[in-house]
């Protein structure tokens, strides 16, 4: 089990059984996350939160998860309030905070930071996003959302939509869905297609994926539209960005008569119109809530 290694770094470290275990544990945590039950299983434990990059949901849901289980948190929420501004190396910071706490949650703009941290501290390290790399806890909550709302993961058809090249959440999610044998479609502008190495990994695992640039191609038969933001800075020509952005905006009219749910790791800008929020399609805020029981399950499993 991945928990015997003591760290949560990459979804590629997980087996299907590891994931199923977390999803089962998360379901048991839900009443505590909703404040219907109380727990103090992590009473006296301290979680270090090292967020070198901005975060709302990941950081606050980790804090909520730790506190709902009776534990406490310390840390920083942006690099400028840490000694990184004085030029301190990441390895020195994590070594120090690792001595103060019982586990570390780390978000950083460079890929591979969590793996490095895990190798140099004795306490468990959880990757809360490393650059364009991995974001395994987001993937686990995405899978939990599908399981909770649709009752299954395996026999679904999931379309990953938007920026598939740079979006770390879709990279991790594609690997995890491949483990479950879930059917996948990738919908993106040609400039932002899923990276070649991930396509090769998926092909190597015997997973065939349908790639298209049009949402309407997949809408009639997908169970989940997993939408990500297309970032303006990826396009040298602003006109090109505006043209593409319009083609990847989901609104109520587009979804009419479809049977899909719409998920999004958030924050969204205008890729999902607000008129979707109150429809049965829009599930992204529920998805955001599920981050709490999933992270409770991880903390409970890791912190001894």
């Amino acid at each position, binding site marked *: 089990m991945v928990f015997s290694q003591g760290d949560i770094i990459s979804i590629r470290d997980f087996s299907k059984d590891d994931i199923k275990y977390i999803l089962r544990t998360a379901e048991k945590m839900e009443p505590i996350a909703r404040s219907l039950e109380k727990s103090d299983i992590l009473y006296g434990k301290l979680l270090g939160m090292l967020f070198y990059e901005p975060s709302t949901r990941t950081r606050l849901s980790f804090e909520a998860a730790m506190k709902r289980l009776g534990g406490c948190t310390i840390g920083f929420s942006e690099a400028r309030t840490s000694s990184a501004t004085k030029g301190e190396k990441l*390895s020195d910071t994590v070594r120090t905070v690792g001595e103060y706490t019982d586990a570390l949650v780390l978000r950083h703009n460079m890929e591979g930071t969590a793996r490095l941290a895990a190798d140099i501290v004795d306490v468990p390290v959880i990757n809360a996003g*490393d650059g364009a790399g991995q974001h395994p806890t987001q993937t686990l909550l995405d899978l939990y959302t599908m399981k909770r709302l649709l009752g299954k993961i395996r026999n679904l058809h999931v379309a990953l939509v938007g920026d598939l090249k740079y979006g770390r959440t879709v990279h991790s999610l594609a690997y995890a869905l491949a483990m479950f044998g879930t059917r996948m479609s990738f919908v993106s502008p040609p400039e932002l297609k899923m990276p070649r190495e991930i396509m090769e990994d998926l092909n190597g695992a015997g997973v065939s994926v349908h790639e298209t640039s049009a949402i309407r191609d997949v809408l009639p038969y997908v169970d989940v539209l997993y939408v990500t933001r297309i970032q303006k800075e990826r396009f040298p020509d602003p006109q090109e960005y505006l043209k593409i952005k319009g083609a990847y905006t989901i609104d109520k009219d587009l979804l009419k008569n479809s049977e899909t749910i719409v998920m999004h790791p958030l924050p969204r800008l205008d890729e999902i119109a607000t008129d979707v929020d109150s429809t049965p399609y829009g599930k992204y805020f529920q998805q955001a809530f599920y981050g709490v029981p999933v992270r409770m399950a991880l903390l409970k499993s890791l912190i001894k």
Partner: protein
Amino acid sequence: MKTPKELKVTPIRNGTVIDHITANKALHVLKILNLPSQDTSVTIGMNVKSTQMGAKDLVKIEGRELRSGEVDKIALIAPHATINIIRDYEIVTKGKVNLLEKISGIINCGNPNCITNTGEPVDSLFYVTSQEPLVVRCYYCERAMDQSEIEEQFGPL
């Protein structure tokens, strides 16, 4: 009738003969070894017929015995190469390069945003995920690098 003159390649007295280099990769091997240099005599054979390989390259270096780190780098470019150490015209050591499962500290990650490229006190580390064609994956950022990206690291020819 004139007989064609044959250019004899003289044997080396002390040094290293790198044989069975993948055809047309001898110049990459020289690059890895920071050759040519003013004070080292080097003989190169390229696209030489080989019963084992069809065609191969060959490099003879006078007065220099390779270090293990250099041999590990050559394995990335020419996985079938053999290294012969010569002393006083005799082969004293004959061995094959060995492409290790884990490659540490000899190449850099091609991802500029990888933590190993930022001055942290850590050596690069790669796992070989495919030997032929060569593909390695960074242990830290998980990015894959292929043969051409690895060759680029040794600089332009």
